[in-house]
C-alpha cells in the first residue's frame, strides 16, 4: 500500500467572480510523478500556490504527512519539505549561480543563519558546486543569473527548490519558454537529478508530450475543477479532457489525421 504524503482536501478559492479552485481534492502518494494539466486559467498555479502556502484557500485543508499545514507560510512549508519552482524562474539576478546555490544551502542548514560566519566557506562552496553539477550548471557557476539563458535559469530555479531535499516538489511549468530541442534534455536532467531524492513530484505542464513521457499519473483541471485523474493514457484519451484541455493536438496524435 502506498503512503500518502500530501493531501489537498476540498480546496476552494475565488478571485471575485472567478472560481479558481472549486472543491479540489487530491491525494499524492510517496514517489508519484504527477502531471497537472489544464487550459490557461484552469486553476493549476492557484492550486500550487495554495499547497505551498503562497495563497490561503477560502475553504479546505492541506495535510502534509498527517499534519494540517493549511495556515503555514511558504517558509514554514519549505522547512517541512514542500518545495517548489516557478513558471518564471525566481532567482537572485545580481548574484552568480554559485552564490544563489550558497544562499539556498545556508538557508536550508538552519532556521537562524549565522550573523558573522562567512557564507562562502569551502565546504559550502563544494556542496554548491556539486548541486550545480548535478543540474548541468557547472559551466555557469560564476555567471550572474540575470545573464543566463532561459533553460539554465529554469534548471537553477529547480535546483534551488531541491536544496532542502523536500519530500514534495511542485514544478510550475518547468519547460515553459524552452525551445522544443531543449525541453526533453531539460526534463531528463531534472528527473535524473531529482530521482535519487525519492520525492513526490507534481509538475504543471501544457506540453502533452512531456506529460506522457514523464508523468505516472495525470490530473486535468477545467475551470477550477478536476475533470480527470488517473493513468496518463486514460486521462489524455478522456473525452472531456480532449475537449477542454488537450484539444485537437492529442486527438490527432491518438487517432491519426482527420479526413
Amino acid at each position: 500500500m502506498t503512503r500518502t504524503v500530501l493531501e489537498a482536501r476540498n480546496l476552494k478559492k475565488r478571485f471575485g467572480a472567478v472560481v479558481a479552485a472549486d472543491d479540489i481534492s487530491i491525494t499524492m502518494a510517496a514517489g508519484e510523478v504527477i502531471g497537472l494539466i489544464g487550459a490557461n486559467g484552469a486553476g493549476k498555479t492557484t492550486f500550487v500556490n495554495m499547497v505551498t502556502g503562497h495563497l490561503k484557500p477560502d475553504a479546505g485543508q492541506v495535510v502534509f504527512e498527517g499534519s494540517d499545514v493549511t495556515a503555514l507560510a511558504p517558509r514554514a512549508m519549505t522547512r517541512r519539505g514542500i518545495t517548489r519552482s516557478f513558471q518564471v524562474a525566481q532567482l537572485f539576478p545580481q548574484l552568480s549561480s554559485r552564490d544563489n546555490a550558497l544562499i539556498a544551502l545556508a538557508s536550508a542548514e538552519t532556521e537562524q543563519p549565522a550573523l558573522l560566519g562567512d557564507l562562502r566557506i569551502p565546504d559550502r562552496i563544494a556542496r554548491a558546486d556539486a548541486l550545480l553539477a548535478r543540474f548541468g550548471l557547472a559551466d555557469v557557476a560564476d555567471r550572474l543569473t540575470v545573464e543566463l539563458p532561459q533553460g539554465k535559469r529554469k534548471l537553477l530555479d529547480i535546483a534551488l527548490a531541491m536544496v532542502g531535499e523536500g519530500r514534495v516538489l511542485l514544478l510550475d511549468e518547468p519547460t515553459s519558454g524552452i525551445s522544443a530541442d531543449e525541453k526533453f534534455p531539460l526534463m531528463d536532467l531534472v528527473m535524473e537529478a531529482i530521482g535519487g531524492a525519492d520525492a513526490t513530484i507534481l509538475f504543471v505542464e501544457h506540453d502533452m508530450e512531456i506529460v506522457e513521457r514523464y508523468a505516472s499519473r495525470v490530473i486535468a483541471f477545467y475551470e477550477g475543477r478536476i475533470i480527470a485523474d488517473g493513468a496518463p493514457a486514460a486521462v489524455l484519451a478522456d473525452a472531456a479532457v480532449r475537449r477542454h484541455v488537450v484539444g485537437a493536438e492529442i486527438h490527432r496524435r491518438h487517432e491519426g489525421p482527420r479526413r
Partner: protein
Amino acid sequence: MAKLGTHALLLAAAVVLVPLGLVLPTWLVFLVTIGLAKGLVVIGLVVMMRAGLVSFGQGLYYGLGAYSAGLAANFLGLNDAVLLLVIGAAVGIVVALGLGVLLVRYRQIFFAMLSLAVSMILYGALVRSTALGSTDGFNLPPPTFLGLAPDVETGRRILFVLALLLALGTASLLHRFTRSPTGVLGEAIVMNEIRVEYLGASVSRVLLITYVIGAITAALGGVLVALATSHIDPDLAFWTTSGEFVFVAILSGTGHVAASLVGMVLFETVRSFAFQYSPYTWQMVVGTAMLLVIVFLPYGLWSLVSRGEGRSARP
C-alpha cells in the same frame, strides 16, 4: 582592498590614526571625532540599505543614544564614556526591537516615510519637553574613561581614540556581517523576497536583525556626539539630520561599510571648511562638492576602490 583584506586595512588604519590623535591639533581631533561618530550611524544605515531598508529616521536612534547618555550623566550620575555607550546601545536595541517588528513589514518609500515619522515623533516630544530643555537641550558634564578623569583636551583626544576604535571595530564586524549568510540574505531579499521565503529563510528575521544593527550604530554615534560636544538638543532627531546620513551613505556608496567612515569624515571636513571660509554660501560649496561626486562617481566614493578591483559597486 579585497586582496589585502578589509580587517587588515582597518587594523592598519587604527595603528596609524591612534598616534595621530595624540599629536593633531585639537580642532582637527574634534572634527574627526564628530565625523567618526556620524560615520558610525552611516555604517549601520549602509547595512540597512543593502537589505532594502532606506531609513529616513536614523535620527531617532541617534537622538535616543545622545539623550540616554545625557540623562544617565545628569540624573543618574553615570559619567563613564564606555558605560554611557553601553546604555545608549541598550536603549537603541530595546526601542528597535519594539518598533522594528512593525516597521520591517513595510518596504521602499513606505518604510522610509514611517521611519521618518517615528523619528519626528521623538523630535516633537523633545521640543515640547521643558524638563529636557525643550529646543535648547541641555549640557553634559565631561566624561570619565574607565575611572580616569582627564583634563578637557586630553579627554577629547581619548574620546577620539575611543571613537576611532569603535568605528573601525564596528566596520570590521559589519563587514563580516555583510559576508555572512544573514547579511547576504539581506541583499537577496532586495532582489527576490519570494525566493528567500521559498528557501525556508525568514525575511522578517533578517530585516529585524538588520534594523536593530542600524539602531545600535546610530545610538552609539549619538552617544559619541553628545560626549564630544558636551551638549544635546532635539535637532539630533530632526529629519534633516536623518537626511544627512542617507545623503552621505549614497555619496559613500553601499558597496562597502568602511566607505561610510571615509565619506562622513570628508563630508564633515568639507562642510567645516566651507562654513569657515564661506559662511553665507557654505551650502553652495557643499552642494557643488556633492554634485561632483554624484556626476563622476555615481556609485559613490567606494566605486574608486571597486573600479580598481574590476567590479562595479552596487548602487
